[in-house]
């Protein structure tokens, strides 16, 4: 199918340094009292956990770094947090919301 397509699917792993690309906006929507993600003809409605993760997606921190930090904040096991974050970020990477 993808003949001529050199691009490949980005796979999110613990060592990945995820970043929100410039055209995706994580914005606080004051009128509706919530955070939202703006994308071309799409809105994403992140929950509190997702907002915390996405704020840390700066292209510097790895998934493992993010998981460490949140594990402390939420007082939860790192392994669970890591798996949760990877699943979420992979889904968002597939939708073009996060670059891995």
């Amino acid at each position, binding site marked *: 199918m993808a003949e001529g397509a050199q*691009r490949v699917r980005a796979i999110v792993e613990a060592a990945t340094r995820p970043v929100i*690309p410039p055209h995706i906006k994580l914005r606080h929507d004051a009128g509706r009292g919530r955070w939202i993600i703006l994308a071309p*003809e*799409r809105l994403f*409605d992140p929950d509190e956990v997702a907002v915390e993760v996405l704020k840390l997606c700066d292209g510097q921190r790895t998934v493992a770094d993010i998981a460490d930090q949140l594990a402390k904040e939420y007082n939860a096991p790192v392994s669970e947090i890591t798996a949760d974050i990877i699943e979420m970020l992979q889904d968002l990477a597939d*939708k*073009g*919301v996060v670059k891995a």
Partner: protein
Amino acid sequence: MNEHSPAHVKETAMPLGARQPGEEEKDSSEIADAACARAPIGLLAELTHRCPLQCPYCSNPVELERVNTELTTQEWQDLMRQAAALGILQIHLSGGEPTVRRDLVEIVKTAADAGLYTNLITAAVLLKREQLAKLKEAGLDHVQISIQDSDTRPENADRIGGYKGGSAKKKVVAGWVRELGLPLTINAPIHRHNVDNVEGIINYAVELGADRVEIAHVQYYAWALKNRAALMPTLEQFNESAKIVEKAREDLKGIIVIDAVVPDYYAKYPKPCMGGWGRGIINVTPSGRVLPCHAAESITGLEFDNIKDKPLAEIWLNGDAFQKYRGTDWMKEPCRTCPRREIDFGGCRCQAFALTGDAANTDPACSLSPLHAQWAKVAEVESHEAAPPFIYRRPGGASAKPGTQKTPATSDA
């Protein structure tokens, strides 16, 4: 943090016009929640109706607005600020061809400064690299380029758009978009003259570096209705294209997002047009008329306000045209008691009006409409007959041959 990894991020498509998300049907309460019925999310700004292309499926109204009626730079800028204040999040700068407006950069800058997400919807053939760079600098967030076919069939693409050299020019401009680091969506209207090449079109979008491609079967309203017999694919062709889209979504996961629009002649249920009338989207015409949908003026008897006379918030909340079909109270049977009434909102009001004479009737696209069978039959018959010539859309009237005019006059309007 939940160990069962729930979906932490809910996705909502904000389709423009009759488009719908290609993915699984969304639960209506979820959309209501995310899209928030009290304030609109998106505003489609038709900056001008001038356009160098002559597409037979043009989505602009049959009566185009003239250049000397277009809003001024200051009026558009003021509208952008009002939109942001009203809670609108996304601005789609469209047309006609928005890049014929010489003040496009100023309008984009004002919108971006007001915090709006700016999307340029363009045919691309008039764009210059320098202009694109200035748009980016002004804060443009995203570019959507329409194509008529893949670059392997440029003659076909140029024939459909009625613009010689268009296919090649679009490819060059798409390259600039990516070089400048702007995200790109490719929009491909699909019909019987390119439905055999859906796979090629998707691959071409990948090759162009697009993040997203719309495989958008033509919607037969306004000008496109004149060309229905020339454009309607057969059911078999449509089904084949749907299979290709489904496979490509799987194969190209994480590489490109594919949105699909079904021709509603072949659908069982109608589309939730505009995501519900007066619910999430506002359309503003070149002269400042504020519409619940870009085709709404085809419904005679509706009264539309102009942004020159009233504030946007006032029009949105209380405007006659917005109130008329907002929510579900206006519905008749079978919509009124239908369990899907807040999923598809009875379909398209404009199509209901055009085909039944009453915009409050069920859209004949719905299998529950008494007119549905007769209506669906039209597509079957027309799509199996030899395609008549296109009636090209050109300023000053229709033609079976593409006109030679290449560049519309620009203005400082």
